[in-house]
């Protein structure tokens, strides 16, 4: 038995468009029977490549306080209790849904029992399969602010018998932290621009805060005149792979093709990266 299975590999980058989806989709497609999870719930796109057969759909809800104005006596205990400042009291309790973190605390402290927590739909999760890859994608409902409850649902019940590749949202804020929280290894994808290097620095700091093992992939690699490469050299960061800047990769991606499922010459880069990543994660 290989007890190294069940490891979770998160793919992140400070900046959008650096190649998180390219890397995570291709590694998952290469690694037999693995799972790909698209945590970029604001604009999920991994499914456009995998085109999975949807096996299950789940609606994700979040609780919100509903106030019974007839029972409320205006004591403001709920307003004082809410550490997120999602409530105000002006003649009656005002609820700011976008700020509420669904902690249910207001309902607990209300002496009048005037607050009921109701379920509100915030998005959905799809579970499907594409050849031998399991594909999970989260979709935040248009107009909703926080994808965190959807991400936490996506990361529940992970297949412990195989590898999981987590395609993170861009940036280094709450949604990314939620996505990498339980990861065994983090891949930071960066591109050869000053902006790319600046955002690489942000996620580098983040994975350090979380004490994660990590390595960098230099995507769109054209040579050594590369701010992200310089950042890695300066900070002694391990580079686990380089993906060439290639017209072919761009063309295949633009029509939703998975590179490693084609005869592309770029397939080798991903095979090398996967081999290295699996060694790292099992160390």
């Amino acid at each position, binding site marked *: 038995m290989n007890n190294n299975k069940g490891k979770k590999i998160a793919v992140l980058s400070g900046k959008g468009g650096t190649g998180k989806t390219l890397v995570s989709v291709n590694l998952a497609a290469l690694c037999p029977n693995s799972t790909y999870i698209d945590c970029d719930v604001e604009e999920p796109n991994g499914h456009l490549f995998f085109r999975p057969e949807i096996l299950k759909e789940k609606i994700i809800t979040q609780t919100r306080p509903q106030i019974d104005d007839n029972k409320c006596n205006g004591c403001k205990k709920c307003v004082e209790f*809410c550490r997120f*400042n999602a409530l105000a009291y002006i003649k009656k309790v005002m609820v*700011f849904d976008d700020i509420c973190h669904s902690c249910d605390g207001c309902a607990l402290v209300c002496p009048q029992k005037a607050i009921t927590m109701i379920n509100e739909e915030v998005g959905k999760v799809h579970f499907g399969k594409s050849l031998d890859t399991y594909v999970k994608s989260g979709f935040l409902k248009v107009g909703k602010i926080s994808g965190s409850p959807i991400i936490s649902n996506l990361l529940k019940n992970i297949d412990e018998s195989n590898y999981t590749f987590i395609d993170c949202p861009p940036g280094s804020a709450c949604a990314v932290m939620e996505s990498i929280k339980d990861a065994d290894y983090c891949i930071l994808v960066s591109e050869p621009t000053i902006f790319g290097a600046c955002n690489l620095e942000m996620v580098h700091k983040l994975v350090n805060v979380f004490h994660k093992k990590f390595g960098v992939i230099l995507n769109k690699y054209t040579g050594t005149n590369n701010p992200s490469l310089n950042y890695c050299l300066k900070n002694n960061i391990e580079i686990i792979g380089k993906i060439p800047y290639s017209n072919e990769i761009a063309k295949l991606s633009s029509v939703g093709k998975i590179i490693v499922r084609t005869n592309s010459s770029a397939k080798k880069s991903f095979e090398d990266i996967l081999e290295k990543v699996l060694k790292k994660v099992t160390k």
Partner: protein
Amino acid sequence: MKIAIPVNEKNENTAVCPSFGRTYFFMIHDTENGQTSFYDNAANTTAGGAGIKASQSLVNQGVDTVITPRMGNNALDVLNAANIKLLKTIEGTAMQNIKALIAGELVSL
């Protein structure tokens, strides 16, 4: 009239603070007795919902008029619900703004 204005320092010649919810202090001027006071804005250090918290505390203190360069939507909802009069600041110190308001020279936000 009890007027509130977000300010950087605790004196009448202070500059107006460009932020409403996260201002360090509010200057309160009561036109009934001509008295001016200052208080620390507890919402300044909160992670979120600062505008809501700052607005609630102004309402709790019986403020009926706010002069500010800007404010967010949530703060606006709270102050509107409380029928607080909202006016836009002009260039100058906090006290100059109060005088301009009394002279009827300020426009609504």
